[in-house]
């Protein structure tokens, strides 16, 4: 039997298989491969990347040398470039914009084989500090309308290099998926004067069906209308619209919530490929009261096929309550 669920923010319906749900051990996970090529992100190979933009944890030595903990560099093969124009042009009914933008790589740690989930908390905190500091810096350039921070882990999640890294893309436009969330949360706010994300958190506080992990400041949960099995969302418990407003004192709790969630996913699903994205309010947006930033994590366990592409209507084989329970039950010593 299938159940249709509506996402309260975007109004997107999904189909959940509640009759014959797929359990964690029934997913096939692609093995991770080891490349034999020289890794441009490993210490000692700093000359293989464009010059660094930001470094955390360099104790000694000059720029672009090998003593660092987190290192941010421009992407060598950027999707968008800072040198390009933001000029708009129309050709008949078609519109285009020059390929202006920023595309950076955040190398999370020097160790080629240590994933984000394996790092000590202090180090995860440094990675998030680098994310935030890059956002704050790019914010100064008025040409940027949106900044997305994301991570692709594993080849089926689109990663082309193994060395643990995340990416940042700064855009001259506000992307449609972000606009969809803004529209949905604004219309909810107009009707109720409340933030829909805050309401999701408060309903979850009494139901406790979807929670995976929580600490004083953050909650990690499987959304009610998850498109994908084991999809996860990490939200600040106190209303905050912009990721780059996270203060230093909150970075530790954020790092803990993310690490806990990633460790649980890794354990329950046997180290699957995944993507994570930080959803934040666009620059110059005035919807501070209605929008609430969050991290979205999508393990890559199923492939999107024609039905999902054609309708935007996703079929999720694992009810989010079941996914949350499986993840919640994993205990992590020291977290």
């Amino acid at each position, binding site marked *: 039997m299938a159940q249709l669920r509506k996402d309260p923010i975007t109004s997107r319906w999904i189909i959940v298989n509640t009759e014959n749900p797929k359990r964690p051990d029934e997913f096939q996970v692609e093995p991770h491969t080891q490349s034999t090529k020289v890794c441009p992100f490993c210490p000692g190979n700093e000359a293989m990347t464009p010059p660094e933009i930001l470094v955390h944890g360099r104790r000694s030595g000059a720029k672009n040398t090998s003593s660092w903990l987190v290192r941010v560099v421009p992407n060598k093969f950027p999707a968008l470039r800072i040198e390009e124009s933001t000029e708009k042009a129309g050709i008949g009914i078609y519109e285009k914009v020059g390929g202006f933008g920023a595309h950076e790589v955040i190398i999370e740690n020097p160790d080629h084989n240590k994933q984000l989930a394996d790092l000590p908390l202090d180090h995860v905190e440094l990675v998030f500090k680098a994310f935030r500091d890059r956002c704050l810096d790019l914010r100064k350039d008025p040409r940027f309308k949106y900044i997305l921070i994301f991570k692709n882990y594993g080849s089926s999640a689109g990663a082309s290099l193994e060395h643990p890294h995340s990416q940042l893309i700064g855009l001259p*436009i506000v992307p449609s998926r972000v606009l969809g969330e803004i529209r949905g949360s604004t219309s909810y706010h107009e009707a109720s004067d409340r933030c829909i994300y805050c309401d999701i958190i408060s309903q979850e506080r009494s139901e406790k069906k979807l929670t995976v992990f929580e600490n004083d400041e953050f909650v990690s949960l499987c959304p009610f209308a998850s498109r994908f099995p084991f999809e996860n969302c990490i939200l600040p418990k106190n209303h905050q619209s912009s990721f780059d407003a996270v203060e230093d004192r909150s970075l530790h709790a954020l790092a803990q919530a993310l690490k806990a969630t990633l460790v649980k996913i890794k354990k329950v699903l046997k180290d699957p490929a995944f993507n994570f994205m930080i959803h934040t309010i666009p620059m110059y947006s005035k919807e501070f009261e209605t929008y609430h930033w969050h991290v979205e994590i999508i393990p890559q366990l199923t492939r999107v096929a024609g039905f999902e592409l054609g309708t935007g209507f996703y079929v999720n084989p694992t009810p989010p309550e079941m996914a949350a329970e499986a993840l919640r039950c994993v205990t992590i010593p020291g977290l």
Partner: protein
Amino acid sequence: MPELRRDPVVGYWTIISTERSRRPVEFSAADIKEERPCPFCEGKEDETGGEVTAIREPGTLPNSPGWLVRAILSKLPILSLDQGSNRTGRGIYDLMEGVGTHELIIESPKHKHDLDELGVSEIEKVIQVYTHRLNALEKDPRFKYALLFKNHGLISGSASDVIRHTRSQLIATPITPKRVKEELQAAQSYFERRERCVFCDVLRREREEGSRIVAENDAFLAFCPFASRSPFEVWILPKKHCADFGKLAPEYFPAFAFVLKECLLRIKTLLNDPPFNFIFHTAPFRHKKKAVYWKTIEEDYHWYLQISPRLTHDAGFEWGTGIHINPTPPEDAAHLLKETEIPKESF
């Protein structure tokens, strides 16, 4: 030089990234092994879900051999008919029972892998069954939309489930899906401003420019759209304005079969049989009682077939923004597809 392009219909943006440009040879074909006996071949009718309709030799019975194209119920339906359509709430959350139907259209009685291996007259019969099933489902008031699509060469689930017998799928849904609604609303708003169909304008523009055309005949134009989300994406549009694929007149079946076969063959030959999806974009079901919403739909919407080779993986950027990064400019894709030599004897 990278470039952002906006789709004139829905308004999504695509990054055409020449920096990371990939030529067709750089895509590698998936290695698919067939490990299960095929239940869709003629003679195995009792192994499939029940027959819904079929084009048959005179005198043969349903669920027996003697068919040319056969529509059956899926044995693993995403949505099924034996459900209600009750809606309920749980605090801020909304739920609905999953009523719908899920059919498979088996396109040949022989064990052919691909639609393009069939002759044009055989593909005409496939189109006949497509339109027939869409029109039949429209009569059921529980359904608002039906998506007709094909997944080709996409491995999902375990390899032991792979069956390569050529088929398409048809899923009827109790709601009009969001993506469909967005496209309908966008076409409607374009029509309100200009009193023209946006797709007819796209057709005009594509024929003027010519650089993105892949194939053309009297009744259809196939081209790589200006803001293609995936490399080598192809759209086939009827030249004569029509909102509903189900209403395609039989006199157009040969021309559509021909252009469809040609496009699939060009993609297969150039890109070494890549996995792909094709998706029919067509008007939702118009039940009389809800006439208000669809006032101008006959004029403002235009059906088309979208063919999307699956050569890149969606990653964090696409998920986070809805913006796709396309490494092959559509003009290059169209040129390469058009120049590809396809075997003449196939037609």
